[in-house]
């Protein structure tokens, strides 16, 4: 890890009291000053890359590794270091091993397959909104809509019983909380993997029409993959699939409520306009806000500095999404801009596997919510909303609303 010169900033950087939708100004400020900057971590230092062009170039570069067991890999906390060192899933592998494992799952997440899920997603949305309406205001949008929707969707897709959601939502929350101790994070992860391993074994003899049944038959029963490997990958799909989308729904709603004309456009607009609005909200919020983390395998020259082999690198995708070289007036939410080049799903071979599923959910969830409750409003001033600053996925812990 780089050690010599002093660091100006620690990572994760603290959000200031200003706009809750903006990345820390100290980070976006680097875009025009020191685009590759040394930052302090809890246990060392790493390079912070802010510019969009530099991030795209390096995240696609094979000299940059996602191997979390590498000693130079920049972990965000002791808990995540302990967990990451044990992870066998493809998010922590490099190509060609990464591609081999990822391709076991890509068929289930194509544009065609995920669009095919739209009618089912719409009916889950309608059921949740019916229940909210029956119960009447006030509601917590996170507990009543934003979290159950992606949880239900990913459970159906994987073939995980939704009735166990208390257990796995709690375990996921511990895993992605940077305040968890290494023991807590490992224990939560262990329990999830045991649970999913049992489920996969069960599906060998009791298959359903779901992803884990396919993996049980094609990978586990054939000996192509071990129980541990299948379970670890199932854990990745289960966790990655709900906190991120849930927070996009809740935080996105919170942001739309600050921009009533744009909310109305999403409520009444064409599907094309809604598609664009979702890309823009992904850009504007960057809920995966703690950066893409990598380690340099060779010396790399970029942005006027030399990153040495073994140095940790953090790609601040929230800063890239506010890069004025790519997005005009990046601080403005503008659903009619072209936001397609956003980095909300990362870049390079690890770019989000579930992105097209997330798109389907978001493109249906926002308009349905706004149509059902045209009078939707926050029940509390914005500055009293509890934002998820310490979590690996940004968003709101709860969103009290009325209509």
């Amino acid at each position, binding site marked *: 890890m780089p050690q010599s010169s002093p660091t100006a900033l620690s990572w994760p950087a603290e959000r200031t009291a200003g706009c809750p939708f903006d990345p820390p100004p100290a980070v976006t400020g680097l875009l025009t000053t020191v685009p590759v900057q040394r930052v302090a971590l809890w246990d060392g230092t790493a390079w912070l890359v802010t510019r969009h062009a530099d991030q795209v170039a390096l995240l696609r570069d094979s000299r940059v590794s996602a191997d979390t067991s590498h000693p130079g890999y920049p972990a965000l906390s002791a808990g995540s270091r302990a967990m990451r060192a044990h992870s066998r899933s493809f998010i922590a592998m490099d190509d060609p091993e990464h591609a081999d494992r990822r391709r076991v799952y890509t068929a289930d997440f194509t*544009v065609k397959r995920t669009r095919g899920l739209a009618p089912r997603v719409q009916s889950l949305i309608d059921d949740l909104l019916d229940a909210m309406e029956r119960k009447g205001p006030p509601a917590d949008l996170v507990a009543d809509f934003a979290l159950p929707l992606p949880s239900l969707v990913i459970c159906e897709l994987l073939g995980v019983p939704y009735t166990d959601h208390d257990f796995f939502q709690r375990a996921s929350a511990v895993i992605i909380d940077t305040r968890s101790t290494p023991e807590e994070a490992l224990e939560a992860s262990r329990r999830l993997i045991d649970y999913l391993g049992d489920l996969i074994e069960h599906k060998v003899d009791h298959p359903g029409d779901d992803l884990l049944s396919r993996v049980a038959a094609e990978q586990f029963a054939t000996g192509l993959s071990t129980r541990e490997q299948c379970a670890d990958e199932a854990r990745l799909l289960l966790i990655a699939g709900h906190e991120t989308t849930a927070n996009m729904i809740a935080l996105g709603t919170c942001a739309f409520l600050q921009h009533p004309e744009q909310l109305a456009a999403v409520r009444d607009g064409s599907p094309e306009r809604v598609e664009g609005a979702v890309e823009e909200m992904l850009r504007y919020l960057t809920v995966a806000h703690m950066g893409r983390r990598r380690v340099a395998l060779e010396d790399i020259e970029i942005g006027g500095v030399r990153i040495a082999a073994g140095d940790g690198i953090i790609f601040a995708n929230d800063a890239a999404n506010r890069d004025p070289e790519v997005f005009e007036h990046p601080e403005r939410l503008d659903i009619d801009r072209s936001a397609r080049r956003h980095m909300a799903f990362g870049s*390079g071979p690890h770019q989000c596997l579930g*992105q097209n599923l997330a798109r389907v959910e978001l493109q249906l969830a926002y308009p349905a919510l706004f149509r059902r409750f045209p009078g939707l409003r926050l029940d509390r001033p914005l500055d009293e909303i509890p934002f998820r600053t310490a979590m690996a996925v940004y968003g709101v812990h709860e969103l009290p609303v009325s209509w």
Partner: protein
Amino acid sequence: MHITVNEEKCCGAGQCVLLAPDVFDQRDEDGIVVLLTPRVPAGQEAAVHEAVAVCPAAAIEVRA
């Protein structure tokens, strides 16, 4: 303009399909890119260039 795709590099993110569905598709078995036509259809130049830019794996190339 002539398009080529690199199946080895493709990570099946589907960004190209979203942008230019008349040019790109994904294989049903593994989500890897399928080129529907090596020639850019009239009026699709901008969409294809955007696909080159957003493909996370740098798996699409366009030559004059």
